[in-house]
């Protein structure tokens, strides 16, 4: 059955990017008099009306502090926030709703695990396996806890296409290996890591795995139970939700055994000056008044994506990435950075004799928003011996016409620099 047949039988409307675009008010912005071509989705995605409206609705009709008030609005806000948690549970197919922890974003989720799980489980000489293509947010928290505990980082290399070297990965395991922290999709290259296989191998050694799903969750179906992921994190703002909110999924047994990350209100059961006891999951890891409105709006964001059909979004973006790769790759003087067989949503490249920042500035004047720089993945830049790349990253509202506009703007770069 094709993805379209599957979605028709699931009762979903056909995927139409032009009607999807109407759901995103910001896409009608003019930039220097030209239509906005927003191709910086891996940095942060734009928001559909459903998310913007959800935020307004919360503050206009259902806002109060949660989980403690006996009054009407407090109950309403609590119900809405817990309903959002349930939507997120369903979106990633977690077994239990208490395994879904609201955090500020993937960065906080990784720091939480590195700090709480890491300090309880790591000691001198222990090893943490990462990949060469991690975002800095999945390197630095582990470096910090390694510095505190005497553990060491071991790095799985990538090959010249930006594909994870699975043969090298297997070799890195030793009796000192305590955890694997790995991206699902590289933010700088778009490489899809065979994360189910990565997890299977780690589990074969009795080692848990944290998955950084920031660049996967917006583009492909994520099923944490099918993957058997121990921890899975993603940021709300990259999946069409608000900034300042994200999800840490963790298996209940692991989360239960971990000490709190931050202390404060909401995360306690009883407090005396002699000692305190901790609340049950998920609240043990949600100290302080949470980001109520954005949690609820993140629920609206994943509802929105689910209403379009995650598999259809994936298929549409795959086709668009293939189109962009062909068109950009056909330009003179372009070198694609990251040519793995399995990719989603990201096209990184450099141009001979023109620095990415100069390309970014010229594209911007044509209304085309791309990211230029090291993409918070300096080890990847070093691997490919470049200081920076230009990165086109796709969202579900991008079109072939926008890729054509980006290619025309790249022609303009050649015109300015080739004269």
């Amino acid at each position, binding site marked *: 059955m094709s993805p379209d047949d599957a979605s028709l039988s699931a009762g979903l409307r056909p995927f139409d990017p032009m009607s999807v675009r109407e759901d995103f008010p910001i896409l009608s912005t003019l930039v220097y008099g030209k239509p906005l071509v927003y191709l910086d989705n891996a940095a942060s995605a734009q928001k559909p009306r459903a998310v913007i409206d959800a935020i307004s609705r919360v503050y206009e009709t259902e806002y109060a502090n949660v989980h403690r008030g006996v009054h009407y609005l407090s109950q309403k806000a609590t119900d809405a926030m817990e309903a959002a948690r349930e939507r997120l549970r369903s979106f990633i197919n977690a077994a239990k709703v208490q395994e879904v922890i609201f955090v500020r974003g993937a960065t906080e989720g990784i720091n939480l695990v590195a700090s709480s799980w890491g300090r309880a489980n790591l000691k001198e000489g222990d090893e943490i396996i990462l990949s060469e293509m991690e975002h800095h947010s999945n390197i630095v928290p582990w470096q910090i806890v390694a510095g505190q505990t005497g553990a060491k980082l071991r790095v799985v290399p990538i090959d010249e296409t930006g594909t994870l070297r699975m043969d090298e990965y297997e070799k890195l395991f030793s009796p000192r290996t305590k955890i694997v922290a790995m991206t699902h999709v590289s933010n700088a290259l778009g490489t899809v890591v065979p994360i189910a296989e990565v997890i299977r191998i780690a589990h074969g050694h009795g080692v848990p795995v944290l998955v950084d799903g920031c660049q996967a969750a917006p583009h492909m179906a994520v099923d944490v139970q099918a993957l058997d992921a121990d921890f899975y994190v993603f940021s709300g703002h990259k999946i069409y939700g608000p900034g300042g909110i994200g999800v840490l999924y963790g298996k209940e047994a692991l989360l239960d055994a971990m000490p709190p990350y931050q202390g404060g209100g909401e995360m306690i059961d009883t407090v005396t000056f002699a000692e305190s006891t901790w609340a049950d999951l998920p609240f043990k890891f949600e100290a302080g008044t949470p980001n109520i409105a954005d949690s609820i709006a993140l629920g609206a964001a994943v509802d929105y994506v689910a209403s379009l059909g995650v598999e259809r979004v994936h298929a549409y973006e795959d086709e668009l990435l293939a189109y962009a790769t062909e068109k950009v790759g056909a330009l003179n003087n372009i070198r694609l950075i990251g040519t793995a067989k399995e990719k989603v949503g990201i096209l990184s490249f450099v141009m001979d*004799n*023109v*620095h*990415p*920042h*100069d390309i970014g*500035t*010229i594209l911007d*004047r044509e209304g085309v928003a791309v990211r*230029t*720089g*090291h993409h918070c993945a*300096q080890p990847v*830049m070093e691997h490919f011996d470049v*200081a*920076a790349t230009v990165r086109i990253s796709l969202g579900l509202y991008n079109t072939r016409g926008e890729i054509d506009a980006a290619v025309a703007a790249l022609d303009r770069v050649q015109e*300015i*620099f080739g*004269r």
Partner: protein
Amino acid sequence: MNDLVDLYQDVILEHSRHPRNCGPCEHPTHDARGNNPLCGDRVSVCLTLDDEGRIEEARFEAKGCAISVASASMMTEMIRGKTAAEAKSLFDRFHKLVTGQSEPGTDESLAELDSLSGVRAFPTRIKCATLPWHAMTAALEGKDEEVKTE
């Protein structure tokens, strides 16, 4: 589109393609590195001062965009023969030009540097033009740590 033409003037592209004084100094008396942590651009500047405190030689090495390389190239040409105080004063006037506090074409002593005034229309690119100058200043002041863009 005119501001792009202003930004990437021929003289800037020429300097970026054929930078002057590019490469290490043999016996520098002063050196420093500059880093723009936001974009990863790096530049290092080395200076050789003579007995009278004048800059006898200025060279640079950079991994950066056309603007930062052209700015570094022009800088190393312009500060040769100047004292530390004169070089810093030149940076002061250049800084005013690229941040829009002085008008292009009004200060003849800036010479070719005037061509970089186009960055004023591109706030995110001003630091590209000033990074080599910050490194030069740090070298003159004997600062060991890497300087970062403001």
